[in-house]
């Protein structure tokens, strides 16, 4: 029983990071209909960037985080300008390939800059303590993780629902043409959502890298988050978080009860099953197609 509850908690705290990265996908998808396969690489580069500011430039913790978020935001903002603004109206395959090409590019960049740093970790910032909840031990890192992501998720939802930027984003998602005719600068809104997604994935990279260690394998979280976003439905923030939790739990439980190898593919198996039986995810919108 103790095992079960511990696994549950680990699954939730991993899953919520998946949910956070999936949120980045959903954000970009909702505002520009582009599915960003480079998200995983953004997570990886973000983690490396934060680590570099902390360890190579010896900045204190808060400025290092802020600086890396700023850099990530700027990169994200400009990704919209080149190449995605020029690709409006291209078929889906071209858009997918463009994000994959950016993913490959980022990967090369990361190898170029950081390939000599192997087995690096973030310095301990939160004191590693064991917290007892109903006599079951939990790591304090997981608790902090959970609280932080929850704050972010609530913050993003508020941003999307109650601010003018959020309103502009929703309008752009509904119909870029109408949004433009209402005086919304569509390209800027899309660029802003790319920037937010890059910032969110950098935070995800920091959180995930904190207890996993930083390496090129971090990019894989992007693909798992794809699965999470798809399970939840691409149009829904709530869905991204729920999908992340489902994937995180499925992964943790198969990892413990069945085996490590299956753990690596279980997100994709869950995703394929969901897509086969409920193509638009748990909370997605059903599209009606006409010729």
């Amino acid at each position, binding site marked *: 029983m103790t095992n079960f509850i511990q696994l549950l908690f680990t699954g939730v705290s991993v899953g919520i990071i998946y949910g956070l990265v999936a949120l980045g996908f959903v954000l970009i998808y909702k505002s520009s209909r582009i599915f960003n396969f480079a998200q995983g690489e953004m997570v990886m580069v973000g983690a490396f960037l934060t680590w570099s500011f902390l360890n190579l430039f010896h900045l204190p913790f808060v400025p290092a985080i802020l600086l890396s978020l700023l850099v990530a935001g700027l990169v994200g903002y400009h990704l919209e300008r080149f190449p995605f603004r020029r690709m409006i109206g*291209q078929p889906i395959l071209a858009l997918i390939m463009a994000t994959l090409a950016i993913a490959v590019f980022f990967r090369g*960049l990361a190898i170029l800059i950081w390939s000599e740093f192997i087995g690096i970790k973030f310095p301990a910032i939160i004191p590693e303590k064991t917290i007892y909840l109903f006599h079951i031990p939990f790591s304090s890192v997981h608790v902090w993780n959970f609280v932080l992501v929850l704050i972010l998720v609530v913050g993003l939802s508020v941003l999307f629902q109650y601010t003018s930027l959020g309103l502009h984003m929703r309008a752009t998602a509904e119909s870029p043409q109408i949004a433009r005719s209402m005086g919304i600068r569509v390209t800027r809104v899309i660029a802003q959502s790319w920037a937010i997604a890059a910032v969110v994935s950098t935070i995800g990279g920091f959180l995930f890298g904190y207890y996993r260690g930083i390496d090129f394998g971090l990019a894989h979280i992007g693909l798992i988050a794809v699965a999470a976003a798809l399970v939840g439905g691409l149009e829904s923030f709530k869905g991204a978080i729920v999908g992340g939790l489902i994937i995180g739990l499925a992964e943790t439980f198969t990892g413990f009860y069945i085996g490590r190898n299956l753990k690596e593919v279980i997100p994709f198996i869950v995703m394929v099953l969901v897509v*086969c039986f409920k193509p638009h995810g748990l909370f997605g919108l059903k599209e009606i197609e006409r010729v």
Partner: protein
Amino acid sequence: MSLPSGVFSVSYIQDMMILRTRFRQVSLLIFLLFLFCIPLFARLYWVNLLSTIAATVIALMGLNILSGYCGQISVGHSAFMAIGAYTSAVLAGHLGLPFWLCLPCAGLTAGLMGILFGLPSLKVKGLYLSITTIAAQFIIIYLIKTPFADVTGGAIAMNVPPVTFGAFVFQTERQLYYLVMAFTILMTFFAWNLTRSHVGRAFVAIHNNDIAAEAMGINLYSYKLLAFFIGCFYAGISGSLWSVYAKVISPDDFTLMNSIWQIGMLIIGGMGSTLGPFLGAAFITALNEIVLLAGPMITSAIPQIGAQVSAALVEMIFGAVLVVFLIYEPRGLAHRWEILKQSCIHWPFSY
């Protein structure tokens, strides 16, 4: 297919010919002769390079049929190559079957798995389909690594037995070159003809608009699955040929990155054209070789960069080239080649 100027069909046979003019026939013959002669005088480096390109071209042609003609995006093509490679290696290594039996088996297994993973294409398309094919990539490699680890050796490399035809054993790279090249020519011929048949036309119709195609009486289910079967059959053949050339295979040879590279090559070469796979594979392989040659020079010039500069540059340049092609020439090198040919024909006039 537009007719060359001054050439008219006076019989059905003429109308169905692929190579319409004497010039094209002769130039193809010369090209084939050239390919045949290469191992006789070229250095081993070039023979290896051309064989790798030829094996890649077969996989790309499958991807071209699946994605370029039928419009079903697949970002898991290298996993189907893995199925082909492992099927033929296991059949030859454990059961001792001859190669001429292993090769079609490899293609068929890959094709059947392709149908299995193509099933979601009946319900979803575009974005969702691309993601389910990424899932296929991971699930297939997992299957090779874990449940079938007894026969495939799991994550550890597996030796591929040499190819034998009766008493003759293909041993040297130069002999294997002829094997790979022969199948490349055969598969090209098949792909070329397929795209002119009613099946190929149905694929193009599905690509353009599947609902409209269904309304025209094309059975979407069977044609989409057929496209998956043919595309993955090609991948299986390619994987099998590549494995006998590589002699050692491991699951790490067939990663998601390889799949992305393949579809990138196809886009750079030009989707939906017979020439595309050739141009794409040749262009990217050549670019790679140049970067790999330049890498050590850069390291010696600027030692601070680090030893992995080649590996990093290969990926960065590929990513950048792909983005540039997607923006400025989404129809790829094949389209550029057509434009070049037209402007040569019409020179000095603009049209």
